[in-house]
C-alpha cells in the first residue's frame, strides 16, 4: 500500500505542475488587472503598485518566482488583501469549509444511503418511486433555490435558526442541510443503481438459497458490492464539499474558502487564484487516492497497482 501511495504522489507532481502552468497563463490572459477599479487609479500610482507586486518583471521570471513561492510555501502579499498572503486566507477559511463539508457529507450519507437501499430492496413499489422522485427533484433544484427556501422556513418564519453567520453550533445546520441534500439525492440514486446490480448477482442467489434472511441479504451481502459506485463518487464529491461551495457560503454568509475561488478570479488576484486552484487540485488528488484505497479494502477482487 505504501508503494501505491508513493507512486500516486509521484504522479501528482506533473499534474500539479501542468495545472499551475495552465492557470498561470490563463490568469494573465484575462482582460483587466488587479488594480483596475471603477474609480481609476492615477497612472504613476498604478506603476508603483505594478512594480511593488512584481508585475513589471518578464513573464518567465514571474512564472518561476510564483512557482517557487508555492513550492517553498513563502507567499507574497495579496493584491486584494494587502496585509495577507494566500496561506493566511487558506488557513483561515479551509477549516470552516472542511467542517461544513464533513457535516454536509454526513447529511448526504445519512439520507442518501438508506433511501437508496430501501428503493432497491423494494423495487418498483411506492417506497422506490416516492423517494426517487424526490431525489430527482433534489438533483434538479440547485442549492441557490433550496438554501433560501430553508432559510425562509426555518429562519424567518419559524425563527428556530439564524439565517446567516457561523457563530454558534446551530448556525451549521442550514448550510450543512442545503449542501448535504443535494449530494444526498446523488448518493440515493447511485446506491439504488449499485444495489440493483448487486442484487441480481449469483452470490445473492446463493445467499438466498442458503436461507439468509432478506435483511441479511440486502444489508450484508448486497450492500458491500452495491456501494462501490458511491465510493467512487465519494472522492471528487468530498474534495468538492470540503473546499467550499461559493453558493452556499454566500447564501448563509459562511466564512469559507469557496467564495475566495470566485472572488480571487473576479478581483484578478493572481497569487490567490493560483493558490486556491492548486489547493483544490491537491485535495482532489488526495481524495481520489483515499477512495482507491477504500475500494481495495472493500473489494477483494481489486489489488493495488
Amino acid at each position: 500500500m505504501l508503494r501505491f501511495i508513493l507512486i500516486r504522489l509521484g504522479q501528482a507532481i506533473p499534474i500539479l505542475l501542468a495545472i499551475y502552468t495552465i492557470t498561470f497563463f490563463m490568469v494573465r490572459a484575462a482582460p483587466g488587472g488587479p488594480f483596475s477599479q471603477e474609480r481609476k487609479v492615477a497612472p504613476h500610482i498604478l506603476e508603483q503598485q505594478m512594480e511593488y507586486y512584481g508585475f513589471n518583471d518578464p513573464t518567465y521570471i514571474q512564472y518561476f518566482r510564483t512557482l517557487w513561492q508555492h513550492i517553498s510555501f513563502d507567499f507574497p502579499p495579496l493584491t486584494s488583501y494587502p496585509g495577507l498572503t494566500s496561506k493566511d486566507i487558506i488557513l483561515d477559511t479551509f477549516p470552516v469549509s472542511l467542517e461544513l463539508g464533513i457535516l454536509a457529507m454526513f447529511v448526504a450519507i445519512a439520507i442518501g444511503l438508506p433511501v437508496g437501499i430501501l428503493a432497491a430492496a423494494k423495487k418498483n413499489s411506492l417506497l422506490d418511486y416516492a423517494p426517487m422522485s424526490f431525489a430527482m427533484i433534489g438533483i434538479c433544484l440547485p442549492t441557490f433555490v433550496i438554501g433560501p427556501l430553508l432559510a425562509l422556513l426555518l429562519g424567518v418564519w419559524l425563527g428556530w435558526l439564524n439565517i446567516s453567520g457561523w457563530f454558534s453550533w446551530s448556525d451549521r445546520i442550514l448550510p450543512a442541510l442545503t449542501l448535504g441534500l443535494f449530494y444526498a439525492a446523488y448518493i440515493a440514486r447511485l446506491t439504488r443503481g449499485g444495489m440493483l446490480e448487486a442484487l441480481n448477482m449469483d452470490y445473492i442467489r446463493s445467499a438466498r438459497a442458503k436461507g439468509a434472511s432478506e435483511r441479511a441479504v440486502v444489508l450484508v451481502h448486497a450492500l458491500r458490492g452495491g456501494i462501490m459506485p458511491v465510493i467512487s463518487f465519494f472522492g471528487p464529491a468530498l474534495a468538492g464539499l470540503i473546499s467550499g461551495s461559493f453558493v452556499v457560503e454566500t447564501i448563509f454568509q459562511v466564512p469559507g474558502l469557496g467564495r475566495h475561488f470566485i472572488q480571487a478570479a473576479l478581483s484578478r488576484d493572481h497569487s490567490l487564484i493560483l493558490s486556491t486552484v492548486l489547493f483544490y487540485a491537491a485535495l482532489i488528488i488526495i481524495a481520489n487516492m483515499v477512495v482507491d484505497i477504500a475500494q481495495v479494502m472493500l473489494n477483494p477482487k481489486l489489488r493495488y497497482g
Partner: protein
Amino acid sequence: MFSRFGLHTILGLLCLAVFFVGCSSKSEPQTSNTLRIGNGAEPNSLDPHVATTIAEAHIVNALFEGLIAASPHNDKDIVPGVASNWETNETFTRFTFTLRSDAKWSDGTPVVSQDFLNAYERLLNPNFGAANAAFLYDLKNAKAYNEDSLSNFEEVGVATPNPQTLVLTLENPTLHFLQKLKHWSWRPIHRPSIEASGGYHDIANNWATHAQFVSNGPYSLETWRRNERIVLIENPHYWDAQNVSISSLHFYPFENTQTEFRAFQSGQLDITEEIPSEQMGRNPESERNDPALATTYLLLNNESPRLDDIRLRQALSQAIDRKLLIRAIEKSGLPATRFTPGSMPDYEAGDFATNDQPEKVILTEPLQFLVSNRESSIALAEAMQEMWQRKLGIEIRIQNMEFKSLLARLDAGDYDLSYLAWHGDYIDPMAFLEIWQSDSHFNRARWKEPKFDALIKAATKTADPVDRFAKLAEAETLLGKELPIIPIFWKTKDYLISPKVKQWPASLIDLRSYKGIKLSQ
C-alpha cells in the same frame, strides 16, 4: 472480515469528526447595547491609507477621527474633531488648527500634530503607492512629492510649530477645504504601532488587523473575523467618550442582499446596507431613502466618431424616459437633470439641454453598449435600447460582461456607451465636476474641452464663494450642453432600519458620526 471493518471504520470516523467539529463551536455573546450593521462587501483593509471602498470607510470612520468630524445632525455642518478650533487666512490658502489637549490614542498617548504630518507623509510617499494619494493634492507641493519629482517632504505644505498646532498650506484657495478634511484619507495614524508590525511605508503591513491596533476615534477594534464580523468597542481614551452611547458596533459583511434582507427580517441585524430591488417599498415602517451624492450616467466614448454629433448625444439623452426606468426597473432614486446631484446643498445650476423636437440622426452601424453583468444594469440597458430604437430609430448592440473585463474595454477605448456611477467624496460640486477635466485620470469619457477646463481652473483660483459657485454652475451648464456623459439617475441611499435605533443620521456621502446614535430597548 477486513473489508467490512473498512467500511465501518470510514463511517465511524466520519461520525467522530462530525461530533468533534460540533463540540468545537462556541455560542455568541450578545450584549444589549450593541448596534448590528449590515455592511456590504468584506473590507480588504482597515488602514485608512489603503481603504478605498465605502464599506471600509464605514468602519475606518468609527476608528479614526480627523481634524473635522462628521456632524450627528446635518451632514454639511463643520464640527470640531481632533482640532478644537482653527483659523484661515483671507485667501483660504493657509489653515492653522489647534488640536485639543485631551485627544488621545486608544493606548492613552496624546494625539499630536506630528501624527498628522506622519500620516500625510505616508499617504503621499511615492514608494507607498496609495490609491487615494490624490486626495491630499490640495497641500502645497503634495502632488510633486507623490509623483517623486520632489524628494524633500519639508517643502510640502504641512508644518507642526508645536505639538498642539498644525499648519496646512494649500496650493490654491480652497473654500471647501474643511469639507474635504472629513474624508478618511486625512485621518492621523499612530506611527509607533505601525512600525512595530512592519515597514512604515509598506502597503502590505498588516498592522490594521492586529489586536494591538491603535486608533483615535470613538471606537477601537476588538476582533476582525474575516467574512463574519468586525467588532468595534468603545475607546475609553476617546476625548468625548461620555457622549458615545452605543457600547459596541458589529459590522457584518453581506455579499448577497437577499441574505442581508433575511437577516434583518429575522432580527439578526438592526440596519441593512441595501434593499433588494423587489423589496423596495414593501417595508414602509423600516425603509429609509436618504438623499445621496451619487449619480449614475452613461459614459460616452468621446473619441468615437459615431458619437461626434452633439445632436445625437442630446437626442440619446432626451429619448430616455428616466421616470419610467425608475418605476419599472430601478425602484429608487430620482431622474437626473444634471451630473451634480440635486441634493448638493446651496448649489444652483442649469439642467442639461433639451429641445422639443429631438433630431433624427442617421447611423450607419449600431452603437456598442457595454454593461456589467449585474441584472439591473442589463435590464436598464435593454430598456434604453428599446427607447432609442422606438423614438430615434437608432440601433444599439448590448454586450454584458464581468466588471474587470468591462473596465479593460473602457480603458482601451473599445466601446461607444457604457453605464457607470459616480459617488461624491465630499460635499461640494467640485467633487462631481473636477473629474471631467482633460487631464483628470478619472475622465474615462476621453472628453477634452478647454472651455470647461478654464472654468474649473478659474473656480479653483478664486477665493470668492459667490464667484466660485457661479463658475462651477457655468461649467455644469457646459457639461449639460455638450453631454460628453449622459446623467441618468440621482441615487438615494436605501436601507432598512429597526425602529429601536434612534438618531441614526442620514449622510449625503454615507459617512456618518456614530456618536449620537441610541438604542431603545
